[in-house]
């Protein structure tokens, strides 16, 4: 096919018909929900997250009304505690993070000129998990069973079952479920950015939004797993009475605070950076020029991501840790302001250098920047430890964090809403209503939160359901309450604007005159995403590349057709986006929903202590996952290669580090290894807390023999898999199968040997934190050995079923990636429990 073939309108129409048929969404009352196309799943995701935001906002309004006057009794103390816990938890876990993922699921394929993200079914799975978990957590308040320990759920208040009820379990298990879906989305987005860029979009031409998404998704991989590790310890204590946080049995409540804030502080940047990414898209558009300082923005994004992991203790400045430890974190907390300043001044310089077109999105961006800068400056203040000793846990912090989150997340999202609404719906929102809403939000936010700086310094602690009149805080609180109502009215105006939108006329294409790829979207959008996948030569191709839009629309770039009736997109190299292969994408299926339901069942049934039913769900989850992988991945294509236009022919099958599947496995295992390191941290943390660890009475621990046997077996299983991969690649399929069987056998033997250590030494995990953490590390490693056996069996079965052969060996390569991480886990875990007691 050459460029001129596309001159024929009939050919183009035929191509369009084929594309339309391939990307046709499923219809029917039930089947429509099995869709996995990013534009539809993304919209569901956004609407759900928006609904949770409104719900959590109403909770905040009730709280503000209760606090309007001193000694009020609108709600009881118990209800109030549920309100603030749910408000914070929902805004963080059910709004801010999912909203970023939702927006990215919609935008990223458009920005990258891809037909869809590499794993559409994974997006659908993430959405259904999110919906299920969110309804479970949010709905609990209607049964007076909502969590009531504050969004950071400090034990022992929340782990002692006599002081806290079902709410704590709902928080832990419901939100763990959502964390799993967040990690799934992160995997999807990272692989999307690294492997699914259009040909020619080198790293230095990537839209900055994609850079930010890459950075944020990587942060999720390293930030969420420590919380998952914390959740595991937490539920072990609540459900099984293993004393990780019970000081009377060698536990320490501070361990939770460490694990929570290792998650919690990066979390702030996880929800802030995507909003800055929206600025990075709309500032160039409204300055009518390229953004200044592209490498500086990348510096800022990457630098912030790293530094944000060195801040967690600044939430623990008053816990009595040595001052020197606090000082390290104070220093890092100051340092993180540098990249933030760089970002802000890159935007200011761009606006200065360009010709500014004033618009509603820019108005929102301006207002949010103003609010964010105030929040950032108070952030620098509280990073100064002595000041924080006064400000900590007061309304000053409430003011600070809301300035940051409203200026750094919420208002930028509204800016993005007004900016991208035409892209998603083809309609523009009302500028007039938008401006009215903006001023209500801006004044409302300041009126609510500015006085809180003073009420905090005047001695008002946070999380109080009332306050005495004698403290003289009534006026400030009344102002805050009035501001909150004004803010809520502003949100209501936006909702009205959204509701009126369907009745408005279609907007023109690219209404803001932007230069980036996502604005190729047509108001009468087709489900195929992009007509042909372009060759990129500029950061702003619509501005800079000649006849760009026309060429894309006429299918003059790559992959303008779907001859084989399959959904396809192009995979490219990480650095320079050279085309590598065409991959076939997942199609609408019921599997993601079923997997989400059964996994949700595991978490939700465990909450109610229905362990057998939860086990059934776990088995169902495993079955769904295998069904999904077996039918939906590493399919051997009907022909080795296909042309994508311009004389380029690409393979239809790739394996190893070039393939998206390999990256997905690698990234997932990075998250898994991070969670594991959270548990190992627990072990060594207890060591620093106790003069004798292991305690004298159990100095022998699990002994050295069985852990070492388990270690050797784990390494043997790993080596067998590597050998199987190598032998298989050389064509000796029979030997490879034998090696896989050996691998399965050693993995299973490793389970027995791993459990034998603590079992034969009679370690009672309810007794003390030492046996509890040893058992936890053991169970974690043994579970991974079990998964290793399943994976090795899977590769063996694929080989026997002829779905894997030496030319098509993605399965065994991906299993080997898992085994690398498994070997690492086994070595660290067994060396820790087996050898460390002899050293200390």
């Amino acid at each position, binding site marked *: 096919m050459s460029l001129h073939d596309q001159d024929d309108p009939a050919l183009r129409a035929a191509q369009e018909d084929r594309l339309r048929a391939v990307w046709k969404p499923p219809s029917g009352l039930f089947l429509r929900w099995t869709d996995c196309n990013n534009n539809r799943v993304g919209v569901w995701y956004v609407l759900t997250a928006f609904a949770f935001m409104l719900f959590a906002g109403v909770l905040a309004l009730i709280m503000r009304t209760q606090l309007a006057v001193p000694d009020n009794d609108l709600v009881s103390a118990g209800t109030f505690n549920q309100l603030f816990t749910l408000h914070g938890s929902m805004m963080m876990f059910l709004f801010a993070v999912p909203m970023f993922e939702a927006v990215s699921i919609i935008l990223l394929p458009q920005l990258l000129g891809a037909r869809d993200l590499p794993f559409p079914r994974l997006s659908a799975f993430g959405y259904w998990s999110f919906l299920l978990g969110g309804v479970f957590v949010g709905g609990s308040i209607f049964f007076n069973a909502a969590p009531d320990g504050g969004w950071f759920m400090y034990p022992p208040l929340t782990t002692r079952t006599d002081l806290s009820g079902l709410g704590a379990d709902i928080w832990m298990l419901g939100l763990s479920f959502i964390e799993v879906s967040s990690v799934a989305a992160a995997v999807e987005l990272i692989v999307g950015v690294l492997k699914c860029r259009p040909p020619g979009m080198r790293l230095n031409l990537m839209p900055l939004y994609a850079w930010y998404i890459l950075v944020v998704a990587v942060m999720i991989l390293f930030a969420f797993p420590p919380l998952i590790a914390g959740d595991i310890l937490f539920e072990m204590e609540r459900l099984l009475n293993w004393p990780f946080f019970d*000081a009377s049995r060698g*536990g320490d409540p501070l361990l939770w605070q460490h694990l929570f804030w290792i998650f919690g502080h990066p979390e702030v940047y996880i929800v802030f950076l995507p909003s800055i990414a929206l600025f990075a898209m709309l500032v160039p558009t409204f300055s009518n020029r390229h953004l200044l300082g592209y490498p500086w923005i990348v510096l800022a994004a990457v630098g912030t991501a790293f530094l944000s992991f060195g801040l967690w203790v600044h939430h623990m400045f008053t816990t*009595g840790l040595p001052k020197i430890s606090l000082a390290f974190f104070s220093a890092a907390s100051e340092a993180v302001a540098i990249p933030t300043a760089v970002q802000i001044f890159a935007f200011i310089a761009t606006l200065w250098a360009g010709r500014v077109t004033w618009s509603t999105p820019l108005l929102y961006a301006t207002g949010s920047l103003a609010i964010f800068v105030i929040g950032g400056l108070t952030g620098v203040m509280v990073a*100064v430890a002595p000041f924080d000793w*006064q400000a900590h846990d007061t309304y000053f912090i409430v003011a600070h964090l809301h300035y940051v989150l409203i200026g750094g997340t919420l208002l930028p999202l509204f800016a993005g809403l007004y900016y991208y609404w035409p892209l998603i719906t083809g309609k523009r929102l009302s500028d007039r209503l938008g401006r009215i809403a903006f001023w209500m939000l801006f004044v409302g936010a300041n009126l609510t939160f500015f006085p809180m700086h003073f009420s905090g310094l005047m001695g008002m602690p946070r999380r109080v359901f009332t306050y005495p009149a004698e*403290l003289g805080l009534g006026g400030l609180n009344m102002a805050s309450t009035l501001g909150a109502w004004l803010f809520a009215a502003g949100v209501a105006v936006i909702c009205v604007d959204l509701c009126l939108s369907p009745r408005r006329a279609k907007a023109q294409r690219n209404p803001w005159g932007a230069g980036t790829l996502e604005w190729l979207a047509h108001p009468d959008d087709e489900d195929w995403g992009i007509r042909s996948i372009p060759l990129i030569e500029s950061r702003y191709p619509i501005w800079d590349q000649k006849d760009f839009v026309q060429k894309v629309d006429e299918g003059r770039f790559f992959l303008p057709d779907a001859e084989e009736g399959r959904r396809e997109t192009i995979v490219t190299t990480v650095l320079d986006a050279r085309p590598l292969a065409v991959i076939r994408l997942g199609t609408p299926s019921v599997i993601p929903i079923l997997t989400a339901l059964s996994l949700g069942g595991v978490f939700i049934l465990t909450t109610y202590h229905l362990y057998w039913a939860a086990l059934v769900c776990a088995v169902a989850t495993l079955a769904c996952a295998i069904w999904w992988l077996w039918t939906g991945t590493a399919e051997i294509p009907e022909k080795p290669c296909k042309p994508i236009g311009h004389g380029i022919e690409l393979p239809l099958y790739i394996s190893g580090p070039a393939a998206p599947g390999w990256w997905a496995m690698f990234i997932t295992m990075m998250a898994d290894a991070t969670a594991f390191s959270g548990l190992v941290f627990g072990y060594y943390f207890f060591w620093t807390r106790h003069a004798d660890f292991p305690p004298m009475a159990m100095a022998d621990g699990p002994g050295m023999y069985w852990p070492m046997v388990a270690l050797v077996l784990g390494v043997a299983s790993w080596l067998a898999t590597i050998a199987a991969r190598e032998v298989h690649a050389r064509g000796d399929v029979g030997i490879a199968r034998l090696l896989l069987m050996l691998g399965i056998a050693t993995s299973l033997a490793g389970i027995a040997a791993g459990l034998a250590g603590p079992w034969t030494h009679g370690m009672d995990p309810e007794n003390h934190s030492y046996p509890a953490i040893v058992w936890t590390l053991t169970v974690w490693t043994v579970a991974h050995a079990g998964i290793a056996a399943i994976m090795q069996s899977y590769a063996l079965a694929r080989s026997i079923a002829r779905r894997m052969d030496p030319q098509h060996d993605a399965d065994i390569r991906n299993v080997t990636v898992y085994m690398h991480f498994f070997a690492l886990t086994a070595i660290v875990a067994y060396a820790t429990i087996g050898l460390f007691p002899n050293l200390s």
Partner: protein
Amino acid sequence: MARACTLIIALLCLSGCNAQQSTLSVFGADARDIRHIAIVLTVGAVVILAITTMLYIRAVRAPEHSLDHHQGMRMILWVGAIGPTLILTALLLYALPAMRPRPASAADLVIRVEGEQFWWRVAYRPPSEATPLLSANEIRLPVGRTVLFELGATDVIHSFWIPGLAGKMDMIPGRTNRLVVKAEKPGRYRGVCAEFCGLSHALMAFDVIAMEPAAFDTWMADARAIGPIPAVATPGRALFDAQGCGACHGVRGTPHAGTIGPDLSRFGERRTLGAGILPPTIDNIATFIRAPQASKPGVRMPAYPQLSQEEARAIAHYLKGMR
């Protein structure tokens, strides 16, 4: 902006002055130092905010090409990167020395305070004495002397905060935290629990009384000198004994030595009831005894509905009489 400022100042004035529990009206050396830091930080923040706002407004209004690529990059380098780095370095050099804890010596008065749901267990340990002096929900401090607080908790995490005296310090089960303070101005103040600790977290405060050193020494000597109180058969005392109040509440000089609930010795001189939440009038005490949950949700003390209000008032009179 100006209107907003006026409004805020007006509101601050309306809300009146709170000299009891504020980081702005200080009576301790540490709170004074931190207030100084806060003022420096605030002024710095306001100046930076003003500069950024001005630059932003100029940027938006500037005609196209009023900044070329090189000038723009120089702005990012100097205003975005180097400027903030220098400011933050200066800030660190200013703030780090302020983190040094106040030195304490073995000759200092030690006050052990433990947070409980939802009250404060207090024990004074002067360096010269072997046995501690027990109290609850009230802390007395000698002005001008260094005092070492040993802070702990048994049930859940609490946080010990006297805003006018010093920064807060968490009370964590299994740990003992130290806080060294020095009061500078005599007077009556208030402290609160700053870490969320359950249902009545908002209702967990205490009174702080900073006294001249001589007055403090006299008070301490008087408190320690309480001998056996003769068992005068007042109706209140009889009810107190009969209802088993002493199983939880200790009263020096009587056989009651319970340690589960707040110590009630010299209850009559306390300024508040129920850990800083109610004036200790006879009626309030009586109502509290009969239904503590009504004024303090989640409190551990059982209700005494079997007592008539009159009987409860009798106990209240007995308690008020202990000074």
